[in-house]
């Protein structure tokens, strides 16, 4: 269950959800990390997701104006090895 109070479980859930949500969308501007008042290295998660997307779909966010992103589109030849 996701908690709303600022405790480790809720904070972790929020960061994981954000990382997943930004996968394929985050262009890596680094602004979130720059403004974080507590120096949380948010880009560690964001760049990890970007690396996964590059490896799985050869996709990089932020290069095309109308890029739909691999996680919001489907192609027959998408890698499906993760489905078990």
């Amino acid at each position: 269950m996701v908690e709303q109070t600022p405790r480790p479980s809720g904070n972790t859930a929020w960061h994981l959800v954000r990382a997943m949500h930004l996968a394929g969308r985050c262009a890596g501007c680094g602004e979130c990390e720059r403004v974080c008042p507590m120096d949380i290295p948010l880009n560690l998660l964001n760049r990890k997701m970007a690396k996964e997307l590059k490896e799985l779909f050869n996709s990089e966010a932020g290069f095309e104006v109308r890029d739909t992103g691999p996680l919001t589109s489907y192609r027959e030849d998408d890698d499906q090895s993760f489905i078990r």
Partner: protein
Amino acid sequence: MQKQITEANLRLLIDSLILKGQRVVGPRQSGTMVLYEPLASASDLVTDELPRRSIKEAFFPVCEDLLEYRKEGQQVELKDIDPARFPETVLFGVRPCDAAAVPVLDAVFSWDYKDQFFLARRAKTTIIGLACTTADDACFCTAVGLSPNDPKGSDLLLTPLVGGGFLVESQSEKGLSFLEAWKDRFSEPDGTKPLPLAQPAATPFDLKKIKAWLDDHFEDPAWDSIATRCVGCGACAFVCPACHCFDIVDEGSEKAGKRRKFWDACGFSKFTNHASGHNPRDLQHKRYRNRIMHKFKYYDDKFGQTLCTGCGRCIRVCPVGIDIAGVLEEIEKK
């Protein structure tokens, strides 16, 4: 009462307290920043930097449990949190802008409702303030009627002396009994001059004039322009030593869980959202207006003090560069 203590004796005193099992909290390096945290030894103490977060957490934690519940069939079991379990604590090296916020919090937490959690921690804490000899561009304590060696809120105030050591001034009964309990570590003042105090660049505000404008400008186009940039992240309220809004929720399941109290911020869009869906502060500038109104009008109306000590933390952390001192300056000129 005035005493003096050498740097070495101060460190011995802190180590003796820790060895005795006393919880000692002070500014220390924590990861990439300095924070008020429990000291493992006197060598942890950092005396030349304002911690990133304020001292309010010592009395008003980010999140705390208020009670536990458990339900089995028709039986409901409630377990209170006993404030008697809070440890006796000595806060060392508290900056005057942080210490000055503590009486401000006292007023609100012992007003119509006595907050036993806040008050129990408060009663068990001795605050040893440390005057500032350096200030940065964001510091503005001198603009809101305080100073780098303001004794407000401290039980003992330490002022660094030329050539090392500190002048120690007691400000309360707690401070006096602390001096008495550790008298071997202190000596009589020998007239050594204090180091020059920090000199924040900010000039004093006419807080009465600012309040007079706030008194009759709840509706004013200026609010829109003042707060256009605000993104409502709430960081200003969380780092503020005087902001004290909180929310209470029950977390868990219908079978078992906890009631928790945690920091909230008037900058958040849901802060005043009613269950009906109506939100009287539906736009960000109305939320920012509340921040300024609460600090410089409402709190003053109720308690005769300002809800701001000029620590400058909100200026340092604001992701869009809102400068509360600049906002006050703008209002003062109206």
